[in-house]
């Protein structure tokens, strides 16, 4: 039955867009395009937009459209989100958040508040979510049999058209039948099996679904079995295509040379050990096992769950240690749980790859603390003591050895800001003092960071606490409270 009076959201489109993590980045479009597709498809970002609140506001509104949510107004009326409303509301939001475009770029695509840029963000995000939903639907054994191929066609007219038949041929695509009306001079129609790698090859974004380029106006049309047989795309005795379960598996690294520490921290904060930085190269590592019931978890959900499990285990071990050991085995304040949340959240964040290093000076208690931490941390986390300092880090994510870590963290003058981008590197000016406090105002954690990046590091460390404890945390930078 079809019923056009009650539109139903495309669930896969909702899932695809909703699972994206707002990721602020100073990268420009061309630099973003070089990121591994697995990262791009899991993050909601827009070129040079560093404010994650702006991105979250954009994502919320586009998601509202994909979910077909009706927003209830105070006057009793209800409205849905559309492109025009998105542009107008985001312009108001950007104004409220203090966004001011560069006067020389105002009104153009580099001005995030311009109607052109906001419209492009809306069009691309919506098209990507819908494109993914259709790709997923098509990767079904019955439907691959009924409509085994698809055709690249023009779905929207453009004043200036790219020569898609040339792009198609260069990527190894074949032509079938008489050319269509879009490109009458082409050798034929651009058709390929749905599982053919050509679809990823022609895409500027590395995805096998449209959009294939910025404002290309190109889309896909199913080629049903009968037509595919007539055109010679398939033969009657061809083996059935196997549905693709993992569309994005590029295994590629991308250069992020020149990316500032704060931007790297944002990637680490959002993706944890799903990504690797190897010098100036970033790659995506997480390949969930489809048979694992947790494979549907988003990266964020997975990081949060794992951190909570580690912290909960650690909390139990601390309680046992306190009750079983002589009080003199532990430092002052340990029995009052003063340090508990900090140790648990920091070490759990290291274990899931969101933080590079746990370091603290425990002096004569260092061996006991290290032994205790070792108990709750997974095997891939190294724990070591040097001169009363305790370190925990993942050797696969941080390649420095203990000597180097100790020199950078505990040498004189302390230089751990060089390694992490924040800490107690007093040589960085101007710096800001970051303080994290529990809901009741008691201090939980503090550090110093270069002023322009303080907010990024503060939010990342606040996330450590939230993930490990499930409790709210307040952020203060130079004494002023900021929105988490």
């Amino acid at each position, binding site marked *: *039955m*079809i*019923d*056009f*009076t009650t*539109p*139903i*959201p*495309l*669930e896969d*489109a909702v899932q695809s867009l909703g699972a994206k993590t707002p990721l602020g980045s100073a990268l420009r479009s061309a630099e973003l395009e070089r990121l591994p597709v697995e990262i791009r498809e899991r993050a909601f970002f827009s070129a040079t937009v560093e404010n994650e609140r702006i991105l979250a506001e954009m994502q919320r509104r586009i998601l509202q459209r*994909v979910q*077909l949510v009706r927003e209830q*107004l105070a*006057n009793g*009326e*209800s*409205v*849905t989100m*559309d*492109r*025009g*409303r998105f*542009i*107008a509301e985001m*312009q*108001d939001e950007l104004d409220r958040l203090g966004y001011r475009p560069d006067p020389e770029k105002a*009104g153009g695509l580099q001005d995030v*508040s*311009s*109607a*052109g840029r906001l*419209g492009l963000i809306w069009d691309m995000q*919506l*098209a990507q979510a*819908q*494109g993914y*939903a*259709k790709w997923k*639907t098509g990767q*079904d054994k*019955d*439907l691959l*049999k*009924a*409509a085994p191929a698809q055709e690249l066609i023009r*779905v*929207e*007219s453009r004043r200036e058209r790219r020569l898609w038949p040339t792009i198609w041929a260069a990527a190894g695509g074949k032509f079938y039948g008489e050319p269509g009306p879009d490109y009458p001079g082409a050798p034929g129609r651009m058709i390929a099996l749905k599982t053919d790698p050509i679809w990823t090859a022609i895409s500027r974004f590395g995805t096998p679904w449209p959009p294939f380029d910025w404002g290309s106006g190109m*889309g896909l*049309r*199913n080629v*049903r*079995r*009968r037509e595919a047989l007539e055109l010679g795309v398939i033969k*009657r005795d061809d083996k059935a295509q196997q549905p693709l379960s993992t569309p994005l598996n590029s295994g590629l690294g991308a250069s992020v040379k020149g990316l500032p520490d704060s931007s790297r921290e944002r990637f680490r904060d959002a993706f944890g050990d799903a990504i690797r930085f190897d010098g100036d190269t970033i790659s995506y590592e997480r390949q969930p096992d489809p048979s694992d019931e947790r494979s549907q978890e988003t990266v964020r959900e997975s990081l949060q769950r794992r951190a909570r499990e580690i912290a909960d285990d650690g909390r139990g071990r601390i309680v046992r240690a306190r009750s079983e050991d002589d009080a003199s085995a532990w430092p002052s304040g340990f029995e009052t749980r003063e340090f508990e949340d900090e140790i648990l959240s920091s070490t759990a964040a290291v274990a899931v790859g969101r933080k590079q290093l746990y370091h603290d000076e425990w002096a004569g208690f260092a061996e006991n603390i290290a032994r205790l931490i070792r108990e709750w941390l997974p095997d891939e986390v190294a724990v070591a003591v040097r001169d009363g300092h305790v370190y925990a880090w993942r050797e696969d994510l941080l390649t420095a050895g203990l000597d180097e870590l100790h020199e950078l963290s505990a040498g004189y003058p302390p230089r751990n800001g060089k390694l992490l981008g924040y800490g107690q590197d007093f040589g960085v000016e101007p710096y800001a003092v970051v303080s994290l406090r529990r809901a009741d105002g008691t201090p939980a954690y503090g550090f110093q960071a270069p002023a322009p990046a303080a907010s990024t590091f503060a939010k990342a460390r606040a996330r450590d606490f939230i993930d490990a404890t499930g409790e709210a945390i307040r952020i203060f930078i130079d004494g002023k409270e900021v929105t988490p």
Partner: protein
Amino acid sequence: MISISVKIEPNSIKQITVELQGKIDDRKGLNKVLASRLADELQDHFRRKNAKPNKRGWAKKNFWNQLANATAVSSVSDSGAVVTVAEERFRIHVTGGVITPKKAKMLTIPLIEAANGLMASSYAQKFNRRLFTIPGRNALFERTGQGSESVIGQTNVRARQGKRTLTIPLAARSTIRPVYALVPRATIPADPDALPSAEKIQTALLEEAADWLDATLSDLA
């Protein structure tokens, strides 16, 4: 022997009944394939409509292609399937109806191409223009040319600035043009061509059912 017939209620393709004669094990598979074909037919239809030029000769907003992008199989079971056009604005083109403003007092109907697809506030920001109303005229205007600097003959117009309404003088002999018409409601007539014809759908589904049988039998052979 298996045979399939497709019935569509006269003057409506909102409900399609597919009757199967004979034993079919994989009813869900067949429903899935038929729903997918219906979605394809709808998309092709919407894209054909999208190819028509804009009635006012303006750049297209590709509404019908947006509908095609939002059309997909939503759910499938042994007893049927649901195809959705996940776009709220489609319904009124099928059924016809009246649109009324939800937030503002009036609907804004673009009168010039540059305003098409933009809310009034976005138009004002994009072109750095102040839009204003003139008493007795149901439109939002913009000034297109500077008038006299003399205060004689000035007209007071009303413009919005944030949530405030300002009264500002418009110099005599200024040239202005209407950008949006202001209307309390707009009637959208039902588009008899919003959906493909029942005959076309019937032919397509019968062909698809036959192809499904052919593929199923060739798998068994």
